[in-house]
């Protein structure tokens, strides 16, 4: 088995909206090693959620390829796609709207098993559901409960159990803890870590919360307006961010401690719209290091240090903001 599970090459996803062409994902190339977690960070409109959904085939890509275990998933026929679904699943952000309010816990977790005809009879189905509930820490007495009777943390566990039902290799986690309270968030994050350790899942962890991403990821990619602007090992990215956007993002996170305050980088202006984006570097409008070339030519994602990729014209001259 090769070391790379997911290989995304020049993936593009555009949407036609009334005001023009929305560049949700614009030429993204990434690899995700088997058994590891790739954290994907960015703010609203950067395309990270769309990217996750395109990878597992929930949304059809406009262009590019997604290689899963060496095979191009974008070219799968219906049969292969059904099989692919068993290997690649997704956990959604909102535990309130991602569960059918009219189905009980056991019905919700049985759904993927029933649809994909994984179990031969009812006993097998019930046994598998019980096993999954135990795996994610849901008490067996909750089998007949409905989502609205449970809190956000338990609902999210249902979502996780559902994603694990088909025993996938790859799981996209789209902001899985953003809607949860702090303490429940910790419980669910620990659960995800335990599962990965015991079962060897590969995760794509999408979030806007940098601290959480830092906690769970092996590698991190930063997205801005549909493009990846920086990608590196977890420790490298947070200790020595090179892209001005990454630097601003990290400096914007409030610190829960007293003491000398760090110098904050405050970005001017708003996050621009991904519809008809500007020419050249997408971040140029808000970048304090902006040069002439930045507004004319889009920088490529280049490897500036071992496993550290940056898309910026000014990398060589940058000094990290302390």
């Amino acid at each position, binding site marked *: 088995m090769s070391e790379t599970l997911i290989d995304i090459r020049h993936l593009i996803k555009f949407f036609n909206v009334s005001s023009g062409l929305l560049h949700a994902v614009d030429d993204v190339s990434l690899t995700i090693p088997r058994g590891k977690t790739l954290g994907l960070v960015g703010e*609203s409109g950067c395309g990270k959620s769309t990217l996750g959904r395109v990878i597992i085939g929930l949304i059809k890509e406009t262009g590019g390829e997604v290689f899963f275990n060496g095979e191009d998933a974008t070219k799968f026929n219906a049969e292969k796609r059904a099989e692919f679904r068993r290997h690649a699943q997704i956990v959604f952000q909102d535990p309130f709207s991602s569960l059918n309010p009219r189905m009980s816990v056991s019905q919700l977790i049985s759904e993927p098993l029933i649809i994909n005809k994984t179990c031969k009879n009812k006993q097998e189905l019930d046994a598998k559901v019980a096993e999954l509930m135990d795996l994610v820490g849901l008490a067996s007495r909750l089998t007949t409960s409905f989502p609205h009777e449970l809190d956000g943390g338990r609902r999210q566990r249902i979502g996780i159990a559902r994603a694990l039902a088909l025993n996938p290799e790859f799981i996209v986690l789209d902001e899985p803890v953003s809607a949860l309270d702090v303490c429940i968030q910790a419980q669910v994050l620990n659960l995800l870590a335990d599962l990965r350790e015991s079962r060897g899942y590969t995760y794509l962890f999408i979030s806007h919360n940098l601290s959480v991403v830092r906690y769970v990821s092996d590698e991190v990619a930063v997205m801005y307006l549909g493009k990846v602007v920086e990608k590196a090992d977890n420790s490298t990215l947070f200790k020595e961010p090179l892209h001005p956007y990454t630097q601003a993002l990290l400096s914007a996170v409030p610190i829960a401690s007293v003491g000398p305050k760090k110098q904050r980088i405050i970005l001017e202006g708003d*996050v621009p719209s991904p519809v008809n984006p500007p020419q050249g570097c997408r971040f140029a409008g808000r970048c304090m290091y902006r040069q002439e070339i930045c507004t004319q030519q889009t920088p490529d994602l280049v490897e500036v240090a071992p496993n550290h990729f940056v898309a910026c014209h000014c990398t060589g001259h940058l000094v990290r903001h302390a």
Partner: protein
Amino acid sequence: MSENKDILLDIRDLSVQFNTDSGVVKAVNHLNMQLERGKSLGFVGETGAGKTTTALSILQLVQTPPGEITGGEILFNGQDVRKMTEAEKRRLRGGDVSMIFQDPMTSLNPIMTVEEQITEMVQLHLNLKGEAARQRAIEMLRLVGIRPERAKDFPHQFSGGMRQRVVIAIALACRPQLIIADEPTTALDVTIQAQVLELIKKLQQSEKTSMLLITHDLGIVAETCDTVAIMYAGHLVEYADITSLYTTPKHPYTQGLFNAVPTLESPLGSRLAVIPGLPPDPTNLPKGCSFSPRCPYAQPICHEKACGMREVAPGHFVDCHFPLTPESGNKFLERPGKEAE
């Protein structure tokens, strides 16, 4: 709580409950809290802890029924808000006390221009009319960084961050003595959040307004507030100034909170310390200390009798029989992180 400080807001023994189909929800229980003039207080707690209900009670905006203030006083400038006449309450709301809500899209009127929304306020509270009102509106917008040309735009034409700025402008327009901000930046992107927090801090200092900032984010509190109050299950469990609380938290729940949140500085590869279990059912609060079922430091007396807030260090109050000391260690880290069932 000493008397020689200039207290703007004094909440005494406030209790609020909601009468619902599934029982009586005790949202706020015997809350005592003070806010000094010109200072800012961070009000921290998870969902359901009672923070928003307390804030709404100050403005007498709790929906009654099913809500009901069952006891206590809320003294604003020495006057009990509960005993005010309707006219006095209307002057209070928006005039002396403004509120900033979490979602700027739903707290702005979609069919009024931003200028109109500010002039409406100043006409009501400052008695400015016509051109004078308009000037004030433009001045406020400029204060929050919105160009005068955009005064006649509608809320949907602004982005999330800018809408929140408009909300801040409206809140400050009548020179309130107190601003209550309920999770003002939760719905915003982190870089925008940084902008808005800077703005709030700057304005609060320049206009000398007191602020009650409700949030679940300990980072935001550290950056913007002078004092902190931690709420759990409708009770105030710890209250202190920023430095005291962040360097020596004394309530186990506070310690648990700090340890449950990953930060950019926590060591990589460490496991998050989890507070086991779930917050209590507000219709059926536990006997004794409401945190005791989940507290790793709990002793038998904790399950029997609640403690009540007491001053264990100068200006540092805790509702705990056994407040933490540096020698207590950190029992949350010792546990293997038991999951909820």
